[in-house]
């Protein structure tokens, strides 16, 4: 009897110790740039290639499933695409010539590209969200690629069209977790993309997330914002470069006080269809 009670007490003791340890881990790893996040590096190194195989297999299964559903539609679409392809080839030839002329002009006037001060590091999407709290996604870019998050430094993540997808939340040696724009923990200073456009804040919202929308708040009382306005990052705060397209306003919610107005934004980035993303690294911070 004494042995049994001691056995039970020991088990409870171990459980309490493990729980306290895990609580400490949660708090510590939640801090930006926490070295604890590097604990996952060896596991990431092992599981990243495995995950890539899984993704490839899942793509094939999805492709097969979709092709079964869309076989007829694909045939028609293919015919249309061939016609479009011919027209586009013609257009590409013209654009190549225009591009050559642009490069010459750029050199002549010492113009800079919009994001010339940033290097883009491409990465593949490894994992998707599971559910509440486990709702960030992972890419195969890490500290070995020069992406190191600290308390004061993070990086914007964009898609192939330079549309904002989110920001880097944490990194280990070979992978990074990305906080997407729809996440309720994401916020970015934005502005209406026009001359003298108003500054505002774009953030994720727990109610709008299922609809694939973000919330715009902190709209100044004297600002004009309308449905259809394009919102880009303002560059204020220094975390994100200015001018990164975020999305378009789809609804404006008026309030009694004009500075309490809110709006809904539909991000350009299609998060569900993402496969490749790019981390923007400012050259000054390297």
């Amino acid at each position, binding site marked *: 009897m004494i042995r049994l009670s001691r056995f039970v007490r020991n088990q409870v003791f171990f*459980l309490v110790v*493990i*729980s306290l340890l*895990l*609580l*400490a*881990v*949660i708090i510590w*790893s*939640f801090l930006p740039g926490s070295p*604890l*996040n590097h*604990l*996952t590096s060896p*596991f*990431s190194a092992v*599981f990243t290639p*495995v*995950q890539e195989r*899984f*993704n490839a297999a*899942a793509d094939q*299964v*999805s492709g097969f*499933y979709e092709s079964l559903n869309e076989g007829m539609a694909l045939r028609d679409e293919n015919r249309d695409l061939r016609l479009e392809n011919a027209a586009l080839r013609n257009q590409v030839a013209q654009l190549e010539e225009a591009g050559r002329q642009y490069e010459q002009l750029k050199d002549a006037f010492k113009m800079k590209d919009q994001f010339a001060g940033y290097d883009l590091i491409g990465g593949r999407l*490894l*994992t*998707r*969200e*599971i*559910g*509440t*709290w*486990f*709702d*960030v*996604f*992972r890419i195969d870019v890490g500290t070995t690629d020069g992406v190191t998050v600290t308390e004061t430094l993070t990086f914007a993540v964009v898609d192939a069209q330079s549309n904002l997808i989110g920001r880097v*939340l944490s990194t280990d040696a070979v992978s990074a*977790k990305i906080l997407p724009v729809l*996440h*309720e*923990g994401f*916020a970015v200073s934005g502005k209406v993309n026009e001359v003298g456009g108003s500054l505002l804040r774009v*953030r994720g919202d*727990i*109610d709008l997330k299922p609809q694939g929308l973000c919330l715009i708040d902190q709209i100044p009382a004297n600002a004009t914002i309308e449905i259809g306005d394009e919102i880009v990052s303002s560059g204020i705060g220094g975390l994100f470069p200015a001018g990164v397209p975020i999305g378009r306003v789809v609804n404006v919610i008026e309030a009694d006080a004009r500075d309490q107005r809110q709006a809904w934004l539909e991000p350009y980035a299609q998060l*569900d269809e993402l496969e490749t993303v790019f981390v923007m690294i400012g050259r000054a911070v390297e």
Partner: protein
Amino acid sequence: MSSNKVYLRAIIVYAAYIVVLSQLQVTLPEWFNFSGSRPDLTLVLVILSGYLFGRMDGALVGLAAGFMRDMFAGRALGLGMLLLLYAGLLAALLLRQSFRRNILLSLFQVVWITVLYELVVTGVVFLVPMLPDVTYEASHLYGLMLQRLPGQIGANLLAAVPLVLLLHFMGPYRQKSSFEDNETRRHEA
């Protein structure tokens, strides 16, 4: 079979299930859902391991599966391990004493531990807001949770049916044994 071989087989089988299910869970395409919810495969695995094979199995599988969950999709490290550790222990302790290894009751375990898990995770989201000036009322968060809960329960139940059969016929133990049963037998000997 010697106890070392039993342990080795259990470790290999559990590791295979944890790796495959946790990778599968973060790879499932959007269309793979039940009423908008995708099955929480690792949670179901932990519940069934705890219920079918005892608290030591539940706790260890919970810790390992929780680590994978934290690494793949967690906002921070540790919460997945903590939650799944307790999910495994609860599944092992409750109902198991009186209804040992009843497959139908294992599905009931999946239902109520899924509910408990969602309640706790929603509580954590309420307690740890990521933007300092943006907070949500607990009642609002729990309202949203209640909306998605039936779908999540259904998805987990659908996943539990094949998984319980897999664990039963291709599980970590060849006979009706577990770490604890094995330990008991050794002590008795």
